[in-house]
């Protein structure tokens, strides 16, 4: 069964390490739906979160192949347990005439913030699961969306579960 997975990776914060991860996905024909990467509180490590889809065997291969990369320190499939996922979206939406108020209300319902305003458009900032961001875009309607910038998913395990060096 094909399922969406969120995989978190601790990676040596070295030049070229990221290209090995991305290259692996291309080389072995695994898909990447989203990818985020940034240094962690430990400057020698980067944390990478990627969302992918695959059956159990593919996901097992993905985690094994990631672990084989010399610069990969740890790999966790967050979707195996309780976890939090968040994505940030900045979206420029048409906002003219009557529609201005409607767009504002929709943004409020989704707990979005209007972070930039022009005479005919709003820029809305929204965080949440990818599903929530998708739902917002549907609610606004394709016709009204001018531009979308999404961060990709960042994820973390719930409760005591941690992904650190130790």
């Amino acid at each position: 069964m094909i399922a969406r997975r969120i995989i978190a990776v601790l990676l040596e914060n070295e030049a070229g390490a990221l290209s090995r991860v991305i290259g692996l996905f291309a080389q072995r024909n695994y898909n990447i739906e989203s990818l985020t990467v940034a240094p962690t509180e430990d400057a020698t490590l980067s944390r990478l979160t990627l969302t992918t889809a695959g059956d159990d065997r593919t996901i097992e291969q993905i985690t094994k192949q990631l672990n084989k990369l010399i610069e990969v320190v740890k790999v966790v499939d967050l979707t195996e347990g309780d976890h939090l996922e968040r994505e940030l979206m900045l979206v420029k939406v048409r906002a003219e005439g009557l529609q201005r108020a409607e767009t504002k209300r929709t943004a409020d319902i989704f707990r979005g913030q209007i972070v930039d305003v022009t005479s005919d458009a709003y820029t809305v900032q929204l965080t949440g699961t990818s599903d929530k961001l998708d739902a917002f875009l549907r609610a606004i309607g394709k016709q009204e969306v001018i531009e979308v910038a999404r961060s990709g998913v960042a994820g973390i395990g719930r409760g005591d579960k941690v992904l650190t060096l130790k």
Partner: protein
Amino acid sequence: MAEMLSGADMLVRALQDEGVDYLFGYPGGAALHIYDALFRQQKVEHILVRHEQAATHMADGYARATGRPGVVLVTSGPGATNAITGIATAYMDSTPIIVISGQVPRNVIGTDAFQETDMVGISRPVVKHSFLIREAEEIPEVIRKAFYIANSGRPGPVVIDVPKDTTDPNEKFPYEYPRDVSLRSYNPTTRGHGGQIRKAVKLLLAAKRPVIYTGGGVVQGNAGKHLTALARLLDFPVTNTLMGLGGFPGTDRQFLGMLGMHGTFEANMAMHHADTIFAVGARFDDRVTNDPAKFCPDARIIHLDVDPASIAKIIATDVPIVGPADSALAEMVRRVEQELERDPEAVDRAALAGWWDRIGAWRGQHGLDHDQRHRGDAPLLPQQVVQAVYRATNGDAYVTSDVGQHQMFAAQYYKFDEPRRWINSGGLGTMGFGLPAAMGVQFAHPRATVVCITGEGSFMMNMQELSTCMQYALPIKIVNLNNQALGMVKQWQDMQYGGRHSHSTYRDALPDFVALAESFGHVGLRVESLAELEDAIPKMFSARYADRLVFLDAWIDPDEHVYPMAIKGGAMSDMVLERAGVETDGVGDDGADAPVP
């Protein structure tokens, strides 16, 4: 106080400290500081090749024959790109080689400078790891890490890209070779899990129709001795992959021969009908399994491999064991011994006897018996040539091959009793591998008989190395199974494309190989019949030519096919065993007259 050395001197000193005896390479602008450092020392002997691809295959052959990493030095740009095929070859067969490439100076990286190429980028999918030297000071540590990574866990090639300015002879740094290496992100498994090993032994003891299927991991993992002990203890049949030949003695009664696409009838039948398969250091390659959905329907599978990613990649595994083959097999031998001591009936001897009877029956039907065909003046058969080489060398030579029909004939008919004797490009299937690999083997084992069984197509891909062989007086014996065509391509065209030989023949354009070998200063011989072969082979391996490279150009039946051959999309038991009906034309035909179905 540590000695002060330039980057180039540190690099060469680090190779010395790693115990490197040979460096296979080719100079060029970005590597010249390093070449100068090589000139000023004696410990590392540099071998000047004629093409960088050959340098990588030499290092690979050296590594496969010894278990020690082979080392290559090339320059930037074309030097680096020419090395890629050899790196990919080593990657697919998991052999430890270190490729040091010159790079343009740091301040011009990224500017499309003369002979610049992104070596780390271009090699990335075919290396175990790679390094770009950022500061000269890190050279000793990077070299230490590179050797450690290349030759631990599942071995593989490591690239070190060295910008020219980090080897500047005028900038010196304190040199100290690191004694230890630790990488927090790389800790290969050093022991198989005890619980899994116990489970595996239990399953093996309960087996009624077992097969032990082993690959290159047994050869590379120095586990042949333990494998043989375990197989003998249990009286189980053993089959080897193309990469695994020699892991178990080829002349042993329990040996079924190679399995897979051109494996023996008995090996493939036994696999298909087995109830228990113990795979060691093998990766269920598509050339072994045929259609994975039809693979060994009744078998429970135990898989021992040092690389966890090889387990359950293609075929689901019942008992996975991650770890090095040698220690895990040694522990299994101990456990089986204990069990048999406690209860001599712990193995189902009656079931095994029945299983061996079935295997015996399959053996009787096998397709590897060409002795009775083609006598006298009939065209020479490639199988006869390999058998003659086997007899003349007492089965004790190092044999390298290229890729194609000759490779399969060599694998089928030369029986390897020892690991590391059979050296070929199994995974990538690199034509042009055989001669340079043989050269690497000969450097590693100067007194050994090294035979390169090749075909004229493969040979012509790296034949420039005949010059290197002359320069270093390498007494390699080259056996050219000359069928005047790209034989395996032609065989597929015969079997699957109605005999249309699309661009697989070149009869009228072949060189006179005897004259060619002689022009390089070597000995050339030609045979076209069994009688001539029987005359030439003893000559080739005689004391008279012990110090000479001899090139035997054996003109064989151009229409011979390799059998058995797996039927595409079938199970392992689905094989073509012999040529069906009348087939088409002879050699040199472009297919115009061939019947089109």
